């Protein structure tokens, strides 16, 4: 029977969203979806090499470059969530008082806080860097620790070292019950985190199953797909918000 390969980022896969969505699609179409979850860079790389049929990522600039270079076609906005800043329960740097993400980062440095960075060129890391840049802070500062690991591990390390970290809300909600950390800042529109699906370009890789891939992509942005995305919850909280503009 038909098989389809989807590359996605670890954080998306770990949230459990795909395990929630895909069985519905498989039941409906009989197409089996093989999910390969890797880092953002690696996911796009797999698409570029034609080893998967479509990708689902959250790194707008890298995705734009991916499409511009002709590796991918038909990018579709799928959903969004947002990034939040988490930190020790007692919030020693007082981030609960600040009014923007840039201020939050500036204040962390000013108060000698420790910050755990993804340091892996992932969507989250790119976002971090964007804010550091906007705040005019040169890296690394004294409390900056680049650990080069996935979101889950970064949260664990922040927990262990009682430090601050920038995280996507999905991973935070999935893990917060195991952590002695609190959400200390959220809401800046700079922290918006959009997800896209992109098909691998069949002109570059004639063997990709572009029809099946398009079927999945279309289904994801369809009313049914979007409804299911909104319905996915952990402990009563929604992790993702459907954002498809079609239909």
């Amino acid at each position, binding site marked *: 029977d038909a098989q389809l*390969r989807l590359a996605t980022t*670890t954080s998306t896969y*770990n949230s459990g969203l795909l395990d929630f969505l895909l069985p519905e699609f498989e039941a409906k179409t009989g197409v089996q979806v*093989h*999910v*390969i*979850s890797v880092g953002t860079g690696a996911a796009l790389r797999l698409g570029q*090499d*034609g*080893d998967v049929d479509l990708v689902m990522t959250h790194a707008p600039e890298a995705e734009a470059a991916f499409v511009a270079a002709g590796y991918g076609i038909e990018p579709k906005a799928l959903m969004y969530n947002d990034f939040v800043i988490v930190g020790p329960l007692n919030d020693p740097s007082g981030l609960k008082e600040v009014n923007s993400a840039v201020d939050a980062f500036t204040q962390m440095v000013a108060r000698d806080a420790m910050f755990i960075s993804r340091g892996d060129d992932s969507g989250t890391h790119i976002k971090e860097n964007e804010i550091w840049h906007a705040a005019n802070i040169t890296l690394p500062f004294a409390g900056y620790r680049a650990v080069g690991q*996935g979101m*889950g*591990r970064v*949260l*664990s390390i922040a927990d262990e070292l009682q430090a601050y970290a920038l995280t996507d809300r999905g991973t935070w909600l*999935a*893990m917060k019950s*195991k*952590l002695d950390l609190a959400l200390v800042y959220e809401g800046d529109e700079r922290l918006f985190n959009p997800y896209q699906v992109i098909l691998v370009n069949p002109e570059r*890789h004639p*063997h990709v199953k572009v029809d099946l891939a398009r079927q999945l992509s279309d289904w994801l942005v369809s009313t049914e797909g979007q409804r299911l995305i909104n319905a996915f919850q952990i402990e009563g909280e929604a992790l993702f918000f459907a954002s498809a503009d079609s239909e």
Partner: protein
Amino acid sequence: MESISQATFDALALLLSGDAALWGIILVSFKVSLTALFLALPVALLLGFALSFWRFPGHWMIVTLNNTLLSIPTVVIGLILVLLLSRNGPFGDLRLLFTQPAMILGQILICFPLLVTMLHAAYQGVSRHAWETARTLGCSRLKTLWLITREVKFAVLAALVAAFGRIIAEVGCAMMVGGNIAGYTRTITTSIALETTKGEYVQGIALGIVLLVLALLLNLLVGMSRGRSIQGVSQ
């Protein structure tokens, strides 16, 4: 620690209840690793034997190279295989990436140097005397290899056990080359890695213990089959 024992208990209960998904993962792990081991073994036996009993040009180079390959991270082997097997790569047409055969290939490469090192050391322990005796009694080269392998069966067994351990416990290459696709190329170790990235440490440990229990059973089997032979150390 409370929660670890609880999770382990749950995992073992799942195991015993015949949970299809868990057994599927276990089956993939053992199938891939045992196949790789038995495909790598004959060549490794021959090479280890040749290195011990024959002197030939390049001998020293092979030993050094092999020892060096012992230090190759499995993820690097995985990377190289991905580049080779990817659709863009030279062997892309074989469509092997993210399949079990690709994982087997990776594990062959991973266990081979360890097998060679250990078998070489094993045969090295046999006096040249044994070789001379077999040959002068009219045994063929292959028969001689077989006789001498039996002389060091304990060390050969140790090599097998160590090489099996190396690949069943390996995660880097299995992850890269297999893709950790649920129900297809997901192994015990890639599952553990997945649980770990989710912060589900306890689940990871429970799966690790499942693996250990199965490895223990396998080793008990091997230990029993070895049985008598270890005791004869006299003379």
